[in-house]
């Protein structure tokens, strides 16, 4: 638009800059942490500048894909695997989101991780994550996307388990990887399926073009496989339960990986294959929409009862991702990406706010906080901005995107619309519950024992809570700006840009329009949620304890996360797989398979007793004898066969 079109090499540089940072840190800066942090910021800053250029180019093209040729990776018979860049409205926006949030998070990290013994390792992993995420977004080939999909999974594992000396962090990392890999199983089947059935196509655009001509069964299998991957990565029911545990990672990691970028990759994946999904039978759409809708309300309900501020945000993230998935299922492609876009900024802001609070109090437990609005005014106000945006209060960013999602629901499915409005109420409730518990009332002393990571790095706790350093509050302030205003991009042809990535016949975004019913419903719900939170957690009418008593078992059910973790871990994994199938297979192997072998051995030995005198007990002798025997046998057979053949 303003600049000449970005050359391909410059788009690759967006990807290679953080990779170079990773390699340089591993190779040279392992013991020079400050340089490692600066290099990461510099590299991602470079990516950010280039991503802006790419965005500018894409806007100039109205979001239509730029023409870049793929490059061969390797060929092997029918396998002709190439990687390339897909730069269109969708990926350009994602590149912008990933680099922007990543850049701010790295700056924030220099404060938050200050003094941590693993500082270099932290930035190495962050660089590697950013590279993988950018590779995922710009991939032109399904396989290329899958490879980076797995790599973000790896870096997520490494970052969740960053403080691996804590057993809970190590367990959470493992859980995240395995649960998402469960979803990736379906994804990989889809990758293989589509390649085999289309005669070797991995190119995303080509798959989308071919989709309309594919059989319903094939499309159903493919799209459900894709969905499986998305459900794992974007923490949708029933694979949602890894994400709350992932909060064991450092908070900036949660802010980047587990709110703004990686967990949104599932939604991105669905959007990337939107034409294929649209071509699939209606049942697929309904499945996607209802998984999203159910996840949205299911997770929101848990967000209301959590006492750990990061877990509230984690459930909020799951819930909001549910909105996006629901929108995709309802055909609301633009709404889904629009909400992904705004959510990335205000949710990253909120996570960083929770990290700032933790930095001051040494805990994430809101029951131990309180009254922090006086000591941490910047954190407080930015947190309020983020919460209002998330709650969808006019005219903040979240309002516009959430309204688009609800509008699609209103037109397509009234049940999901009702769910969406209920979620809006619950969202406002849990966010303002968090605000009242954290920032209002009296300070309840914090809890250094629950501190994150290397507690010794935060010895300033003893002086009472105070505002975080500039490296931490500056990103909060900067992120507040998009959290307030970025929804207005909807008036700047955001829809055109995003829709440039899909074929013309699927484009139906008509710009922002406010429907009276939707507007009133969502605003009333949000204000109602804030009001309810104020009544309970500020005024104490009714008091939270009374409510908890009144709800009894229901409260307990929600507080225990509907026992999904127990069902999955104790039931499916420990009960069925480990103690059931595993024990059975191991016993079968030992008793039956090996039993036969040993039995044959015993029988042979008994038979061989008669030949005992030959046995000298020396294996060398046996083996030599055996070899001699073989040679003799061969010679004899040659002689005999020679006769046979001559005859």
């Amino acid at each position, binding site marked *: 638009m303003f600049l000449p079109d970005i050359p391909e090499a410059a788009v690759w540089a967006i990807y290679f800059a953080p990779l170079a940072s990773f390699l340089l840190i591993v190779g040279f800066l392992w013991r020079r942490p400050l340089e490692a942090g600066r290099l990461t910021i510099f590299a991602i800053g470079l990516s950010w500048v280039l991503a802006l250029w790419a965005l500018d180019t894409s806007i100039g093209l109205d979001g239509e894909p730029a023409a870049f040729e793929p490059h061969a*990776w*390797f*060929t*092997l*018979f*029918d*396998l002709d695997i190439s990687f390339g860049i897909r730069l269109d409205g969708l990926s350009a926006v994602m590149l912008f989101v990933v680099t922007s949030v990543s850049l701010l998070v790295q700056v924030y990290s220099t404060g938050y991780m200050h003094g941590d013994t693993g500082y270099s390792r932290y930035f190495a992993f962050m660089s590697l994550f950013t590279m993988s995420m950018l590779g995922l977004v710009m991939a032109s080939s399904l396989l290329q996307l*899958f*490879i*980076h999909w*797995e*790599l973000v999974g*790896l870096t997520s*594992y490494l970052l969740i388990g960053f403080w*691996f*000396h*804590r*057993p809970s962090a*190590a*367990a959470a*990392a*493992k859980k995240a*990887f*395995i649960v998402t*890999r*469960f979803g990736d*199983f379906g994804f*990989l*089947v889809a990758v*293989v*399926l589509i390649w*085999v059935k289309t005669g070797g196509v991995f190119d995303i655009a080509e798959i989308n073009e071919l989709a309309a001509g594919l059989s319903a069964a094939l499309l159903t299998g493919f799209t459900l496989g894709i969905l499986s991957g998305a459900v794992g990565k974007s923490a949708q029911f029933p694979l949602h339960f890894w994400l709350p545990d992932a909060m064991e990672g450092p908070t900036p990691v949660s802010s980047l990986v587990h709110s703004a970028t990686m967990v949104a990759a599932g939604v991105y994946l669905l959007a990337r294959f939107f034409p294929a999904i649209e071509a699939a039978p209606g049942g697929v759409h309904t499945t996607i929409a209802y998984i999203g809708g159910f996840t949205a309300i299911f997770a929101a309900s848990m967000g209301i009862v959590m006492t750990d501020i990061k877990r509230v945000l984690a459930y909020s993230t799951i819930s909001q991702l549910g909105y996006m998935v629901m929108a995709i299922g309802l055909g609301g492609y633009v709404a889904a990406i629009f909400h992904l876009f705004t959510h990335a900024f205000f949710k990253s802001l909120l996570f960083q706010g929770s990290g700032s609070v933790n930095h001051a109090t040494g805990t994430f437990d809101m029951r131990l906080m309180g009254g922090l609005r006086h000591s941490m005014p910047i954190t407080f106000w930015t947190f309020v901005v983020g919460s209002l945006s998330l709650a969808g209060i006019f005219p903040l960013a979240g309002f516009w995107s959430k309204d688009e999602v609800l509008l699609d629901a209103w037109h397509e499915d009234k049940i999901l619309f009702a769910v969406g409005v209920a979620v809006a109420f619950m969202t406002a409730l849990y966010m303002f519950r968090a605000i009242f518990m954290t920032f209002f009332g009296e300070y309840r002393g914090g809890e250094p024992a629950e501190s994150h990571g290397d507690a010794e790095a935060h010895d300033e706790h003893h002086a009472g809570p105070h505002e975080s350093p500039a490296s931490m509050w500056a990103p909060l302030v900067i992120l507040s700006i998009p959290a307030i205003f970025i929804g207005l991009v909807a008036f700047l042809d955001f829809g055109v840009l995003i829709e440039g990535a899909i074929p013309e016949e699927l484009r139906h975004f008509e710009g922002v329009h406010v429907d009276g019913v939707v507007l009133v419903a969502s605003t009333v719900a949000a204000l109602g949620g804030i009001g309810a939170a104020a009544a309970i957690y500020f005024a104490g009418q009714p008091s939270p304890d009374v409510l908890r008593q009144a709800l009894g078992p229901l409260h307990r059910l929600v507080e225990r996360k509907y026992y999904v973790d127990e069902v999955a871990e104790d039931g499916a*994994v420990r009960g069925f*797989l*480990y103690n059931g*199938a*595993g*024990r059975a*297979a*191991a016993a079968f*192997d030992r008793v039956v*398979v*090996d039993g036969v*072998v040993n039995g044959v*051995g015993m029988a042979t030995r008994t038979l061989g007793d008669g030949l005992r005198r030959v046995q000298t007990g020396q*294996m*060398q002798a046996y*083996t030599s004898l*055996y*070899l001699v025997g*073989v040679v003799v*046998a*061969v010679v004899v*057979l*040659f002689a005999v*066969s*020679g006769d*046979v*053949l*001559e005859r």
Partner: protein
Amino acid sequence: MLTLFLLLPLAGAVLALILPKEREQDAKWIALVFSGLAFAVSILVFVRFDPSVEGYQFVDRFEWIRAGDAGFSVQYALGVDGLSAPLVLLLGLLSVVSVLISFGVELRVKEYFAWLLLLETAVAGVFMSLDLIQFFVFWELELLPMYLLISIWGSGRKEYSAMKFLLYTITGSAFMLVGFLVLGLQAGTFDIAQLTANPPDDALVPLAVIFWAIMLAFLVKLPVFPVHTWLPDAHTDAPTAVSVMLAGVLLKMGGYGILRIALPILPEQAQDFRVVLAALAGFSVIYGAVITLRQQDLKRLVAYSSVSHMGYVLLGVSAMGAVGFSGAALQMFTHGTITGLLFVMVGLIYDRTHTREIGEMSGLIHRMPLIGTVMLLAGLASLGLPGMSGFVAELTTFLGTFDAHPAATIAAIFGVVLSAGYILWMVERIFHGPPTERWAHLPDATAWWERTAMGALVLFILAIGIYPALITEAVESGIAPIAAIVEAGA
């Protein structure tokens, strides 16, 4: 050149044996020099191998009995093609690694290294033989050093495990020998290339029986359910270097035999039983992985994971097509480097902790960051993480097999979830968690031979994972003729 590769380790073995007692430590250096020279030769072979040329290259041939009128010959014939060249390279690499990680061995040093080198010669003979009888002789020759290495330098129930390994293999190879003889006598030649070009269409015994007689030996070696139980025992009780050789190259003899002999010589029979093979493969992958999940012994865990991962080789074979075969060939190479590295790491850990019980270890990474990092890397490669060679092999296998056997392929794909389970669970238990008093004084990998061994394998795993074209060209040239024959047999 191939004869040189065959004889270098043998020469080293002889030299090591005739060392005077007081200089027995020099056996280590002799072994390193000779296996190193052999590795250099194998690199040269791989690099100078020309994928655009059809047939075997670097052929060394000497006929003991000329073909003449009798119609068959006894010959010494070595050669490599795109299937065997990578395996020769793998053998060269892993032999050096095995020697390096044996530098700590102090029991009967001369003999130990002599047997280790003889093992390399035997396996080299298997990978390079162009004649069935010669193939068989080397196949059997491998047993001798293996048996002794396990039963003398092993641990635990070493005699039982060594004997089990021996009996399993001999049972299989007895059937194989019968199969070879029937085939060879029928065709009037034991030359693999000639048999492949003119496979017999009839014999004294039904060809289907011959097929299974030969396959039995290979399936035992691979190994695959239900003839796999020798493997966990042999691995657990073998010394580290022998585990590396066993997982790294000996198992590949099975897959190699299938692709080199069983399939191209009996393509119609192979086609007939493809579904059986696919079912065995899919079942082995899941069965092996589920049992792996339960293992409490670190070495046994890696051993059972091999049963699961070698199932991918058979799965690729069962596709009866070029891409599937390529997947199997790639999986053999990558499994050799990855599982070889896993066993190296298990050995290094055991050297320090003197236990292999997963439950006894915790927080080791605090004391051994390098070992922990490399072990994690090997584990990630093993669970098929992209960027490492295992992913390329598994993906190729899945792509090549799905059309022929969707159910078995989907089962095998589910195996990657299970492998993530046992690998990460193991990493969590032994490396993560707070540092403990008991393991507070363990040294990291500091010796040069340890670091060289790890580094070499990591290099191969990453290089092929990032740039598979390093090996795919050779594989394609080796698989193409085999696939053409087998596909024509459909």
